[in-house]
C-alpha cells in the first residue's frame, strides 16, 4: 500500500470514528437533557485526530509519567471528550449511558479524579492553558519527554488568564506545548466578534511569541499534516487556529448560536440522527438505553 492510499484509509477511519462520536454524544445529550452539542461537534474532528493519531497515550496506563497530555480547556464540551475517551478505550462505552445521572462519574464537566484520561478539572473557562504551561514546564524540569495539547474555545480567549499563560509559554520557550483554538466564531450568546472581538487572532498569538498556523479544523488531511509538523519552530510554543463550525455535521445546528447548549427535541433528534448516519456510511451504534426524563 503506498503512502497516499494509507492516508486515505486513515482518514476514512477517523471520519467514521468522528461520526460515531457525534452520534453517541448526541444520544447522551438527548437522554440526559443537557450538554453543549454545538461546541462538542466543532471540536470532534480535532479530538478524534488527537486521540486516534497524534497523542502518545496508553488507555490501559492513563497515568504513565511520560504520556502526552491533553487538556480540554473548554470543559463544557465534556460530552465529546467522554465519548472520544470511551471509544479510545479509557473506560467502557457502556458507562456513557450514565452521563449526568445521579452519582455518575460523568459529570457535566470533566473530573480527573473520576474519569481516566482527564488531566485537570475544567468548566470555568480560561483554566486549561495555565495548567498546560505548568505541565509542559514540568517536562523540561524532569526530562520526561512528553508533549502537551490544549483545546480552548475562541470565546474562552476573552479570559485574561489565557494571555498571562501565553506570555509564560513563550518566555519559557515551551515548544512541547500546542494550543488548538476551536475558532467557531460563536460563544454562548452571540458571535465572538459581536461580543468582544478577537480578530486579528493570529497576530495576537504571534505578538505573544507563539508560532501560529491557521487551518480548517474539519479537514483531516490538514489536521494530520499540521500535527506532524509540531513543533513548528524550535523554542516557540505552537498555536493552531482551527477554523470550525459550531454544530458541524448537522445542517440545522451548524453555525447557529442557539445550539450552544440547546437539547434536541424528538423531531430534531430524529432529523440529526438521519443526517449524521448518512455521513460516510456510518452505522449508528447501540447505546444501552436509560429512561429519558421528560419535561426538564
Amino acid at each position, binding site marked *: 500500500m503506498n503512502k497516499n492510499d494509507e492516508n486515505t484509509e486513515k482518514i476514512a477511519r477517523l471520519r467514521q470514528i468522528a461520526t460515531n462520536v457525534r452520534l453517541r454524544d448526541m444520544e447522551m445529550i438527548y437522554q440526559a437533557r443537557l450538554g453543549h452539542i454545538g461546541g462538542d461537534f466543532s471540536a470532534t474532528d480535532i479530538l478524534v485526530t488527537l486521540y486516534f493519531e497524534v497523542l502518545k497515550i496508553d488507555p490501559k496506563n492513563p497515568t504513565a509519567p511520560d504520556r502526552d497530555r491533553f487538556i480540554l480547556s473548554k470543559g463544557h464540551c465534556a460530552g465529546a471528550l467522554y465519548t472520544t475517551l470511551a471509544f479510545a478505550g479509557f473506560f467502557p462505552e457502556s458507562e456513557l449511558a450514565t452521563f449526568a445521572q445521579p*452519582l455518575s462519574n460523568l459529570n457535566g464537566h470533566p473530573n480527573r479524579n473520576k474519569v481516566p484520561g482527564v488531566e485537570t478539572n475544567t468548566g470555568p473557562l480560561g483554566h486549561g492553558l495555565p495548567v498546560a504551561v505548568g505541565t509542559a514546564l514540568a517536562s523540561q524540569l524532569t526530562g520526561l519527554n512528553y508533549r502537551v495539547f490544549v483545546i480552548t474555545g475562541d470565546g474562552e480567549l476573552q479570559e485574561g488568564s489565557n494571555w498571562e499563560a501565553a506570555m509564560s509559554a513563550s518566555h519559557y520557550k515551551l515548544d512541547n506545548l500546542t494550543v488548538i483554538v476551536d475558532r467557531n466564531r460563536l460563544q454562548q450568546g452571540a458571535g465572538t466578534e459581536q*461580543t468582544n472581538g478577537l480578530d486579528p487572532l493570529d497576530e495576537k498569538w504571534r505578538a505573544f511569541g507563539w508560532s501560529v498556523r491557521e487551518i480548517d479544523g474539519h479537514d483531516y488531511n490538514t489536521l494530520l499534516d499540521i500535527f506532524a509538523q509540531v513543533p513548528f519552530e524550535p523554542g516557540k510554543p505552537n498555536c493552531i487556529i482551527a477554523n470550525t463550525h459550531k454544530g458541524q455535521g448537522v445542517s440545522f445546528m451548524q453555525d447557529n448560536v442557539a445550539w450552544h447548549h440547546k437539547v434536541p427535541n424528538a423531531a430534531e433528534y430524529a432529523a440529526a440522527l438521519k443526517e449524521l448516519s448518512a455521513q460516510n456510511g456510518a452505522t449508528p451504534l447501540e447505546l444501552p438505553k436509560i429512561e429519558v426524563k421528560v419535561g426538564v
Partner: protein
Amino acid sequence: MTQLFDCRDAFNEKLLELAHLDTRIVTVVNDSVGSSKLTQFRAEFANRLINVGIAEQNMVGVGAGLANGGLIPFVCGASPFLTGRALEQIKADVAYSNTNVKLCGMSSGMAYGELGPTHHSIEDLAWLRAIANMTIIVPADPVETSQAVAAAASITGPMFLRISRVGVPVVHPADYKFEIGKAARLREGRDITLIANGVLVHKALEAAEQLASEGIEARVLNMATVKPLDEEAVLAAAAETGAIVTVEEHTIYGGLGSAVAEVVVTHQPVPMRILGVPGVFAPTGSAEWLLDHFGLNAAGIYNAARELVKPTK
C-alpha cells in the same frame, strides 16, 4: 399545585422598571445575557448593557469604573464565576474602594446541578462575608427579589444580590416590606427557631408544619440579609425559643449558619444545628437531587429540629 417562580424573572422585571425611571442604571455582563435573563433589557436599552465577553475580572473592574463615572452598574453573571473569578476585584475595586456596584450572582447555590462543583456557587456567601463593607442579600421569592433590587438601586454602596434559578413558591404576603438587615418572621413559635434564606425558606416553613403536627411550635425567620446580620432577631430567637436550626444552600463553613453561630456563641449560647453542604464537592446530580442528597429539604430540617427539641404533647 403551588406555582413556582424563577427569581431571575422578578429580578429583571424590576430592573427594567427602574431603568426606565433612572437613566444611571446600567448592566454589565460576561456573555451572560440569556442566563441572566437580560434579553428584554438589551432590547430596550442596548447601549446600557455592557457585555465584556467571558472576562469576569474585567467585568467587575469595568463595573467599578462605571460607578466612578456616576452610573449605577448591576453586574450580572453566574454566581460561581462572578464571585470566584473576580474576588479580588470585588474586594479592592468594589468593597475597599467603596464604589456603588451591585453584584448580582445569578443561578447561585447548586442550581446548575449536573454541571457540577465548578458551576455550583456554595462558597460565595463565605467569600463575600469575609470582605468588609459588603452588604449581602439572598432573596427567598419573587416578592422579596423585586424589593431587594429596588433597595439595591436606592442605596449607595457595594451590594451582592444572590439570585437563584431554582423554582420557589411565594412565601411572603403581598404587603411584605423588605428591609435590608431585618429578618422576616414568617411563622411564630416558642420551641425552636428555624433560620433560612433563599430557596430553602419554603422548605423550612414546610418543616415547621410537620413539627407543629407533633406539638412543636417552630419560629421561622427568613434571614435574607446575611450581612449586616439582624443580630437582634437572632438573639431574640435564642432567648425566646432556646434552640436554632439554620439552613442554607451553601457550604456549612462561613455562610448563614456561621454568621448566626458567631452571634449566638458570643451573646446567648443555645444548642444549634447548621444545615448546608458539608465540606465536600457535590457528586453528579440535578439541583433538586443534590438538595435531597444533602438533607436540605423539609425532612432534613425536621430531623435536625427533632434532635434539639422533644415534643411536648
